[in-house]
């Protein structure tokens, strides 16, 4: 698992926790997993999947790279988005608020 941290001071607009599973087969359509207080949502319309994918791509390119030498406690002091990559199976972005 690789972790990326994006402090709120970088500028964030994620809205809530997002998980994007990555299915191996080329023919399997994408899906989004949105954790809710009660249960979860699984948007699977291509336009939704693409929109969340775009948000995730932008978070990943803006966040500190995995293994950054910056101190995590300083980065997350005022809240942060934490992006986790579990091999090639999924990417997940969660908010860590103050």
């Amino acid at each position: 698992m690789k972790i990326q941290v994006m402090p709120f001071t970088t500028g964030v607009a994620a809205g809530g926790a997002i998980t994007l599973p990555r299915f191996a087969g080329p023919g399997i359509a994408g899906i989004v997993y949105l954790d809710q207080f009660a249960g979860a949502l699984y948007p699977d319309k291509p336009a939704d999947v693409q929109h969340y994918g775009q948000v995730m791509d932008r978070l990943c390119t803006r966040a500190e790279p995995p293994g950054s030498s910056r101190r995590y406690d300083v980065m997350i002091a005022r809240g942060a988005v934490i992006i986790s990559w579990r091999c090639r199976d999924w990417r997940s972005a969660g908010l860590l608020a103050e």
Partner: protein
Amino acid sequence: MTGDQPGYSRNEAGKDLMEGIDTTVPHSARIWNYWLGGKDNYPVDRAAGDAFLKAYPGMAAEARANRQFLSRAIRYLVIEAGVRQFLDVGTGLPTADNTHEIAQRLNPACRIVYVDDDPLVLAHARALLTSTPEGVTEYVDADLHEPDQILDAAARTLDFSVPVALILSGIMGHIADGEGPHAIVGQLMARLPSGSYLMLQDGTTVSQANAEAHQDYDSSGAIPYHLRTPAEIARYFDGLDVVEPGVIPIQQWHPEPAEPAEPFNDVNTFGGIGRKK
């Protein structure tokens, strides 16, 4: 960047997040990802990829042949040539068999530096391309137009007193004729020690359909890709001892009978390996 910068307002933050990745024009790394069956691409890339295939249907097989040649070349470099260090410029989005995976499977101590200048490619590479404990996999954010910056950054991970294999796989077309593509390769090889290798492959103008498909692609708003003649590809190896059978269509370079053969109707991509004296 420090931890005590003032926070952005919500609006500024939202605006900022919309910058950085342009999903309105096709992007070569994302199109290749699409051709190779990956999912890290946008509708604009799939549309451009499909338009390309319509003009040149052989490209999907060519893209797979490109990866197979990379695989065979890395195997040659590790097994036959004994290379343990690789400088791979133009990483691209991760696919099934990436340079460090092929090399470290054969020798886990191999050290690989990937170079790219695309933020999305770098984000994926850093998260997904992980090294063996014995070896090293490092990522450098640099542009092929600045070979000295590439070498300076690579020298922090690679030991330039022992041979290095420079991998330029489907990347030289990003350099226009006026920007001196051959001089750039020369500059990169100049600082590598004797016994180092160049592995290079790139699209040529041999296939009329491929050339026409590229013309359409270049007019799509994407960064143009400059095809060259086989003689111009061979010229990248000037001054090097070229490994037999030379700089040839990639499908014919050390083919392996066990490998699933890609349909090979069109001569298009040329490549080879050269050793620095």
